[in-house]
């Protein structure tokens, strides 16, 4: 499924990225990488609050559509 569809409190693993935007490179450098486990802490407005390892990252739902998770 897509990261966008994950429910708050759930933890998933990142499988793959689609799309060609530069910003996708940046979020990978921020720690959202293939094989990493991510917990969805909260959905607010058009954004998601994620926890990867010990950092908290906010990305928009629009971007989360490009991320396949399990």
């Amino acid at each position, binding site marked *: 499924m897509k990261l966008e569809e994950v429910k708050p409190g759930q933890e998933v693993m990142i499988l793959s990225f689609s799309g060609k*935007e*530069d*910003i996708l*490179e*940046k*979020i*990978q*450098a*921020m*720690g959202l*990488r293939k094989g990493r486990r991510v917990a969805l*802490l*909260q959905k*607010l*407005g*058009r*954004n998601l*609050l994620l926890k*990867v*390892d*010990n*950092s*908290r*990252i*906010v*990305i*928009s739902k*629009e*971007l989360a559509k490009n991320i396949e998770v399990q």
Partner: protein
Amino acid sequence: MKSIRVALAGNPNVGKTSILNHLAGTSLKVGNWPGVTVEKREGKVNFWDYEINLVDLPGIYTLEPISDDEWVAYNYLRNEKPDLILNIIETPNMERDLLLTVELLEQELPMVLVLNMSDEAQKLGIDVKDKWLSEILGVRVLRTNGRTGEGVKALLPNIVEVFNLKEKPKPLKYSKELEDFLEKVRERENETKAELIRKLLDDERFKEYRENIRKIFGKDVHEVIKDERYAMAHGLYKEVVHRKLFTSRDITDSIDKVLLHPFLGVPLFLFIMFLVFKISFDFSSPFMDWIEGFINGFIAPFAAEVLTYLGAGELMKRVVSEALIGGVGFVLTFVPLIAVIYFMLSLLEFSGYLPRIAFLMDRFMHRLGLHGKSLVPLLLGFGCNVPAIVATRTLETKRDKLLVIAMIPFMSCPARLVVFSFFAVLFFKNPAIIIFSLYLLGILVALITALFLRKTAFKGGLYHFVMELPPYRLPTLRLLFRVVWVYVKDFLYRAGTLIFAASVVIWLLLNLPPGVKNPSESIAGYIGRTISPIFAPLGLDDWRMSTSLIPAFLAREIVLSSMATIYTAEASQETKEDFELLKALKEQVYALGNAFKEAFLNVFKPVPTAFEVKEEDSQSLRSIVAKSLSPASALAFMVFLLLYTSCLGTVATMWREVGKGFALLFFAYSLLIGWFLGFLAYRLGSLLWST
């Protein structure tokens, strides 16, 4: 003395600024990187026989630049080649941070690795074998606590030793296949890995290699290099980090449950902002009163005594009392307000709450066509427009940036508040309501401006929201005071130079041609009278008002000091009191004690006390102004000063940021809208208070 150039590099929020603060102490300077408005922080330390020059690079996640601040860091490393890189890692997020470390190692420059916040990591069960890490990379590894400054001083001898011994990191080894290709593009012995990779990625001559790589690896060369770097970072992490398996309740998660609550979050945000501004004004106002009293009740008579004793002429005495003490002294009374506002804003920033505001408020902001991140620069605008414009560097797209920059000057800063409170207290029964309405009017004009720009010049959609929320941390008072001092120093410098110069110029304008008895016969009076017809529709046909607007372009707060100069020069008959140095000094010390007491008590009062009406003696500027203006024209004056960009600093920053055209166009726009709404305010006020 030899100098060493050290670049601090690391991901955002790893505590680089705190470490720089601890290292550089009071030598810290805030400036700009040339060509872009990315804040540049620099400091200097003398250690042993060396002058260590520290440069704080913008926080970046990777050396593949996208935004302005990332380009700054990338270009500095590539072109300026510092003598040493101080790579700062946030230990709790070590795996992520190691990607940048790997990319920095590709530069093959001497390096010292700093494991910051290792105390936090220990609490999370993360154990780093620093000796082993040092062994693998051939780099010295040190531990620090950026919050308290523990371990920071130990960096200095290590920096000098690495520099002296020319210690270089061990070369990175990627997979054999990739290394073979990198060797094939090598043309000189001393090319760094970073340079080889760049050639392999972009150079036209090596197109063939890129195709071969695609065949062998089954993916694009960019992908190959990215994956190799990630693998290297991951491998390092696995090798040196031991994670104990225990789940500790993270304090940040618990605080976020409340502060980022879907329903509670917004009221709490509003409450926090209310507290920030209430404390800023209530805590500082007794000190402002004290400074005013100190200058008028001690400095002024003391200076007069000294000048008389020295046998100074009447002219000299007038320059000192009217231009120096009257002009600069008046502006100095705002130091407490500026210091406390910066203290509160820095507290919000260093505690980690500031970026959360962006996340929390994005759902409202994006309806207005604005990025959640734009709220932070806009809020900073209430502190001072200049750093607020600089802060727009955190916005990714030019569209967001320009939109926000066009809104910031309408956010009312303390310099404006000073003018507002002077007039509002003087002319209106409920000054707080008037001041609050002016703030709202500023916000409204900002929104209308943004809406107008979105419908015309910037039609594009909203950019993605990507940001990191750092953990909550309690900053030390020492760190906060140092940051506040950097800004207060800047303000004092401006008061001492720009504002003093403006005061002298206006004093000269008022007293030239030589021998003028009445200011209305002076050059200033002439200029003021010439432009006063323009302001007549706003009810401001008094030449003294229009004259004081001229120097106010340097900075708004000057409007009061220049008014003080103009009005007191008119009514320069002052009562003379006997002055006794010791007695006066005693009184001032006693008053300062009272100011402290009052400041602390004010903070705990539920209602803001800053706007209370105070009775002043009839000789003061207040009463003279009160006699020469009507409430309606006072309102028009405030509206005009609120909206028109009457601040050289703001216009100059805008100019540097987005160019001459934008800055001048915006300046003209602000004049027009200020005049127009000032006119409306005067008409409305005249109707309301006509009786």
